[in-house]
């Protein structure tokens, strides 16, 4: 039994932190807020480090790593409010395509390989629409060059990998513009199929669970960033002749948020490990993680805004970048209460 990252995983995380600290400042995120299409060198920098391809099998140019390796890096992405879909591409799209490679249909398998090679080359940013009905907007659709979608065939859902150039999108206005939500119109064709036999519902379910855990990891980073910047503000901001952080009410607000975050963290790591090892309770673990991380981020957001006061309510204050992402991701891939319902259902199923 060992519940900790390896030294290698920590070194990778530290390296990513270093790059993101430089390449993704709040000014950069702000620029993406103003125009989500703003070109940046961030994706290329991550690709150069091998991050974008880290879960692509080694024979396709990747590093063949697992979700547990991705999670600490996505946490870092959350800490800087990275606008790009790092987690969904690396933690969800690549594993799904990898599962498609082993299918019987050589054409479909080859297509999945090609996309995986593009991901490994840093050349594809993915949006995951596998669970979206025809009218449900897909996050990241407006910027993605790879969209993973499902079409219901006669035997069940079939997965398609569609190029960004082959879909027509209708953007949806959201509070955080970097979410790039859009409705996607596309034509399922034989040339986009990556799994010609219908994928098992279990694999699609697993995809949603991976997305939940990846989103949870991002929420951990966001929560930590908000608590940190708020604690820093509380040390500096003076009222009644002393820093507001010396008032017990402020301390206890922040301490409460910190406690939730502390306990959310291992649930996310545990869920990533469980998914990697196909544990019997992996789905439930994923739900625990997403519910906990959503609550942690919502509480950190609430407390941070309250401690900042009116300043936190301004466009100028960087806090807004983290608040908006948190509010969006807390609901994405299942809200806290959605996942609590799943947890209870799963507990009752084994009784």
């Amino acid at each position, binding site marked *: 039994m060992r519940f900790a990252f390896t030294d290698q995983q920590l070194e990778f995380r530290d390296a990513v932190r270093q790059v993101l600290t430089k390449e993704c400042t709040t000014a950069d995120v702000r620029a993406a807020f103003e125009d989500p299409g703003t070109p940046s060198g961030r994706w290329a920098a991550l690709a150069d480090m091998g991050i974008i391809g880290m879960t692509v099998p080694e024979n396709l140019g990747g590093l063949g790593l697992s979700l547990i390796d991705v999670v600490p890096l996505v946490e870092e992405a959350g800490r800087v409010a990275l606008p790009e879909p790092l987690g969904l591409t690396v933690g969800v799209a690549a594993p799904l395509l990898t599962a498609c490679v082993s299918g019987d249909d050589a054409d479909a398998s080859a297509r999945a390989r090609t996309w995986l090679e593009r991901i490994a080359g840093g050349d594809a940013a993915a949006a995951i629409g596998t669970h979206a009905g025809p009218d449900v907007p897909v996050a990241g659709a407006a910027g993605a060059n790879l969209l993973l979608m499902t079409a219901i065939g006669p035997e069940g859902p079939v997965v398609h990998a569609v190029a960004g150039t082959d879909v027509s999108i209708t953007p949806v*206005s*959201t*509070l955080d513009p970097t979410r790039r939500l859009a409705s996607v119109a596309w034509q399922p064709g034989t040339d986009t199929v990556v799994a010609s036999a219908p994928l098992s519902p279990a694999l699609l379910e697993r995809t949603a669970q991976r997305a939940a855990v990846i989103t949870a990891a991002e929420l951990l980073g966001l929560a930590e960033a908000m608590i940190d910047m708020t604690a820093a503000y509380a040390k500096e901001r003076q009222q009644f002749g002393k820093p507001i952080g010396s008032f017990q009410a402020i301390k206890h607000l922040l301490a409460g948020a910190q406690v939730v975050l502390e306990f959310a963290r291992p649930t996310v790591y545990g869920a990533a490990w469980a998914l990697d090892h196909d544990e019997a309770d992996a789905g439930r673990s994923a739900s625990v993680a997403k519910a906990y991380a959503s609550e942690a981020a919502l509480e950190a957001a609430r407390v941070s805004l*309250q401690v900042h006061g*009116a300043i936190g309510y*301004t*466009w100028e204050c960087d806090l807004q970048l983290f608040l908006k992402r948190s*509010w969006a991701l807390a609901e994405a891939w299942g809200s806290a209460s959605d996942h609590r*319902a799943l947890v209870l259902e799963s507990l009752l199923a084994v009784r």
Partner: protein
Amino acid sequence: MDAPMDLHGTPTQEAFRAEARAWLEAHAPAPRSLPSLDTASGFEAHRAWEAEMAADRWSVVSWPEEYGGRGVGILEWLIFEEEYWKLQAPLRVSQNGIFLLAPTLFEFGTDEQKSRFLPPMAAATEIWCQGWSEPDAGSDLAGIRSRARRSETEGGWVLTGQKTWASRGAFAEWCFGLFRTDPEAERHKGLTYFLIDMATPGVTVRPIPQIDGETGFAELFFEEVFVPDHLVLGEVGKGWNVAMATAGSERGLSLRSPARYTEAANRLVDLYAERFTGDPDRTRRSADAVAAAWMDAEAYRLNTLWTATRVLEGGAVGPEASANKIHWSQTDLAIHRAALDLLGPTAEFHGDGIDAPWLDGYLFALAGPIYAGTNEIQRNVVAERMLGLPRA
């Protein structure tokens, strides 16, 4: 007081309700049909709507007729608000004037001040913003540093300093605020309450873009701004008492009318009912939160009636105003949080979409525990003044 308890309106009150409803149904803009009042065009659209109300004497029903009102009582004002919010009529662009400044003017203003300022306030031809907070005086409001220097020669005061978080300050014609007239006096003392024409030379306005990108509030800079003596409200050096007297007695009652939350709570139940039809299992999970939020609004309505009766019968509103502030701000958050939970993945929609107003409302609700005195400060007041706990 020997009249028995009666939660029904009197025939006169119900007639007033019917009249108000009829007028509002005929005139009120459709829900969300005006642009946001935190934009320049929305500000003017809202002003036009209030001018329309004023023309038929519906803008400030509880004021005396001479100032543009109908001279009705506080219960009738609550009735009017119920009808107003039922139709989801627009937010009041003149709220700072009519709800915050006006009660103070009625209590401390000279006859000249009342005649000069109340009618255009009622007509929305002059819109007011508030100049309380400063960059270093937020929760610690008594830490105000903006100062006013006496000019005997000119017969007035010369104001210098900076105010911030002035809602609608980017567009308002007038500002009311506290300035330090006695630099030697400590904290709450030596402050004076001024009425300031924003067109006076030396006033500069810097709009502050809000979290949603709109310019809801502004910073106000005062550089040697002359304000004549007749624009001092109340006694020189007693500004704190002037500001706080009204905060204690009226503000808790009139700042946020219960009808606003009743309306939002009812919309929440509608949303629940609508989603329930589509997905009963998922929706059922929100049932407790929806009911609790609706009840919070209902309790606020009843508590307001309770307080209004007491005030009508000569009682005062003391530190309960702080309990009130805590309650309505929490109620607003509970309603909107429950709504976003019901919406789930569409909660993040913004702009003109059908679900978007809940997110806007949530953003506004999140500010509730902050403005008008943070809830932390209000809890101190409740503990110290209602329960007698010692100051730190």
